[in-house]
């Protein structure tokens, strides 16, 4: 279980995270939603120890350190692979460094996405780079897979494929924290939604609870964000009104 207690992070005087309390048990697929700059990426980077922060983050009861960080994997639209290496070299590198690396899953996903094994990743298209990034994150054999907008730039069919594959290959002990703006696309397969706004958790709900309430995810998010639909009409009226 990943546990965040009163986690705060300040960037150049601006608070990026404010007293975040969050628990991510094993075996859940959690969607992390929020507008640009809400703190989604910062939250993930704090979990990965990439940013210093105030508060406490534990991984299965232990502080996150070099000893247990292998339980975390990270797939990001910024791309954390080594651009000069080929997928084949990545496979060898990951096999060497991550005891839990799943060669079978790596090979299977490479074949499924039809990616070339012997071409430097820097020469891939953006879509292929995103796919490869996700393949590495899923194949590392981590218990907790953090995916930060992994498909920014991929087409809808590609994303659809990924969602199906993800659901099919995940083991019961694997947890996925998926940050995305594609709320409607992921609402069918996530088990829980966490909403972040201006560095604060403003909503945390299980999809089954939403179903019981007869509410869809988008409606829930809009209500949590106090989204006012009439502001568009108002703005258009203001812009088009003749004097």
């Amino acid at each position, binding site marked *: 279980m990943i546990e965040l207690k009163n986690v705060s992070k300040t960037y150049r005087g601006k608070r990026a995270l404010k007293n975040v309390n969050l628990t991510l048990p094993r075996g859940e697929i959690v969607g992390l939603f929020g507008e640009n700059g809400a703190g989604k990426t910062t939250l993930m980077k704090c979990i990965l120890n990439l940013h210093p922060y105030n508060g406490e983050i534990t991984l299965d009861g232990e502080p996150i350190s070099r000893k247990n960080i292998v339980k975390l994997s990270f797939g990001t639209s910024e791309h954390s692979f080594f651009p000069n290496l080929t997928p084949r070299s990545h496979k060898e590198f990951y096999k060497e*460094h991550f005891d839990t690396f799943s060669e079978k899953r790596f090979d299977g996903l490479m074949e499924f996405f039809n990616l070339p094994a012997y071409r430097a990743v820097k020469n891939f298209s953006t879509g292929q780079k995103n796919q490869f990034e996700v393949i590495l994150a899923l194949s590392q054999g981590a218990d907790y897979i953090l995916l930060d907008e992994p498909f920014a730039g991929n087409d809808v069919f590609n994303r659809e494929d990924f969602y199906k594959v993800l659901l099919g290959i995940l083991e019961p002990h694997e947890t996925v924290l998926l940050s995305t703006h594609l709320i409607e696309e992921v609402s069918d397969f996530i088990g829980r939604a966490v909403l972040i706004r201006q560095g604060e958790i403003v909503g945390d709900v299980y999809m089954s609870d939403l179903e019981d309430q007869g509410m869809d995810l988008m409606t829930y998010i809009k209500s949590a964000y106090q989204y006012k639909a009439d502001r568009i009409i108002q703005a258009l009226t203001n812009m088009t009104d003749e004097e």
Partner: protein
Amino acid sequence: MKKYLSVFALIAQNSIYRIFGLLLLLAAADGVLAWYWLAVKHYGIQNMFHSGNARFGLVLAIVFVLMAAVQIRCGDIYSGTSGYTVRRLAISEKAVLLLQILYNMLCWIILWGVQVLIIFVICKLYYRFGEYAGDPLSEQQMFLLFYISPLLHSLLPMEETLAWIANLVMIAELSISSAYWTVRRREKSSAADLLIGYWTVVLIFRRELGSYILNVIIIGGFLIIIAIDCWRMFFRKKEV
């Protein structure tokens, strides 16, 4: 062991082509200089290396600075987004720094080797095709050059043990400073003090034969810098 080798390879692949490029640049520039002074100006090989007019030292200095820049700029595998992956490896930052130092050492040794080889090739070609072609004493004359010219003697100090030690300590110091510079760059802290070590290298190439005291000063200076950098890198600094 393979774990460490794979990280070593990762460090190397960031800069290996640039390093090869620099070595080619060195060979090409030295070749052009040798052709100009020997074939066009008929300066004679002793004059060419001894007078300093031919600027072999300047070319080496430029390549030297560029190589240090490449090591500093490309050596840090923690920087950039690939660093997100490196930080999840079980291998410690201190081990990575050691590998980086080893790689830098290898680069400096290769630079030294290539420079000596280029000079040997220039001499060999000169004594084979130049004005002394066929002279049975040409081999001896060639070795005499390494006593006469401060630049050549600094590169290959022959039987002067202290100068060899100074050269080895210099390579160690440069390798450590370049690795430490990448850390300072990552931490966005100034590394201006590390320039002292690089400037001291100028003294190395200005040594005359038998500069005993200068060698002792150079070795002492480099050892102090090495000790300070190692203490800061391996004992004072927190792991990333």
